[in-house]
């Protein structure tokens, strides 16, 4: 709703953020988690001043609207998010801008891959290193998420998968699927 007097208009900032998560996070659950985290950290009164609202979220990148003086508090609120609907997740602020258009153009990449797309080709691939073995769940650039055979491995850190990189697979190990570093060459954007 537009105010008649321009001086009374509420000023806004748009926060572009990225979600790192183990599985795909539903937008509704994310919005609920943000609101819960905000009320828990700042209380009802703090939340009323914040005017935090989820504008859009595509599974990886999203946009939030908030009051222009409360950006730092909102950063703290987003940093306290630990899991969304039981899925381990972390929100990282990419940037803050004054309009939706500028925030989208500056901070949200046009071609963003969701987790489902990155994991499409990684079924049924196995890694066996000394001390760690399991099935690859996702791999994105050089980052690999591994579902370990021993479930106790991830107990202390509260995650479901182990995080490795392709550098860990190089050298000194049996080839996982016939290539030297355990990744198919040219796969996932890695140049041979």
């Amino acid at each position: 709703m537009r105010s008649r007097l321009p001086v009374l208009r509420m000023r806004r900032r748009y926060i572009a953020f990225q979600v790192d998560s183990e599985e795909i996070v539903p937008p509704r659950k994310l919005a609920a988690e943000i609101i819960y985290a905000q009320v828990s950290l700042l209380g009802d009164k703090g939340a009323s001043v914040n005017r935090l609202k989820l504008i859009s979220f595509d599974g990886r990148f999203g946009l939030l609207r908030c009051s222009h003086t409360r950006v730092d508090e909102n950063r703290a609120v987003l940093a306290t998010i630990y899991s969304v609907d039981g899925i381990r997740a972390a929100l990282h602020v990419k940037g803050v801008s004054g309009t939706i258009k500028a925030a989208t153009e500056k901070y949200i990449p046009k071609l963003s891959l969701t987790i489902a797309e990155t994991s499409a080709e990684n079924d049924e691939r196995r890694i066996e290193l000394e001390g760690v073995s399991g099935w690859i769940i996702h791999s994105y650039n050089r980052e690999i998420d591994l579902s370990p055979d021993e479930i106790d491995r991830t107990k202390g850190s509260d995650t479901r998968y182990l995080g490795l990189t392709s550098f860990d697979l190089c050298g000194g190990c049996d080839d996982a699927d016939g290539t030297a570093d355990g990744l198919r060459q040219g796969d996932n954007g890695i140049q041979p």
Partner: protein
Amino acid sequence: MTYYESCLHSLPEGSDSPSRLAMAARRLGYEGIIICNHTGFEKFFRPDAVRSVKGIKVAFGTEVIANNPRALRSRVATARVRFPFVAVHGGSEEMNKSACEDPEVDVLLHPEEGRKILGIAAAKAAQMNQVAIGFDLHPLIRLRGSSRSRWLEVVQRNLNLARKFDLAITITTGAKSHFDLRAPRELQALAAIAGFESYEIEEALKYPARMLERNRRKWAAPGVEIL
């Protein structure tokens, strides 16, 4: 910007390999990280792989756990020879005090874990021996409700002691996976909620880099350097 994330835990203690933590920290804008596994997990998973990750400095350290002061002293002495960064897992009053009295210790981490404040004697000893106080912000992220407000209260009191005795401060998330890592600006916002001043946070994030640089030089005796 020389921001360092000082106390991360990698495989086999956490769930990420050192190189994965390094990549995640580089993306968040850190200049370096120090991976400090607790006593008993010091055999890092593929530490050589971090050399392939360009654009970030990775150092390995250790976080000593001990049940009594004697064990602490001997473990710190052996760790000092092996690692450029030695932290102590604080908690009980006795451990906090004996860590502060040991000049070989770099950082006393989360002294508030036992819900007790540091104590004036320990703070004085820390000032004499140049032991920094490490504030682990993980409870601020993980806890909700009354337990978090209790934690905030104890941290506030420790912070007042650190200000009074002019102790060095470091801030960390104590991450065990890349999901626990937070960018420097997010840490700043979190620490501001916990009551830190902005210049303190800035200093705290830069402190581990200075500490590492000092520890890597060769010292013949306190105050005597071999050039």
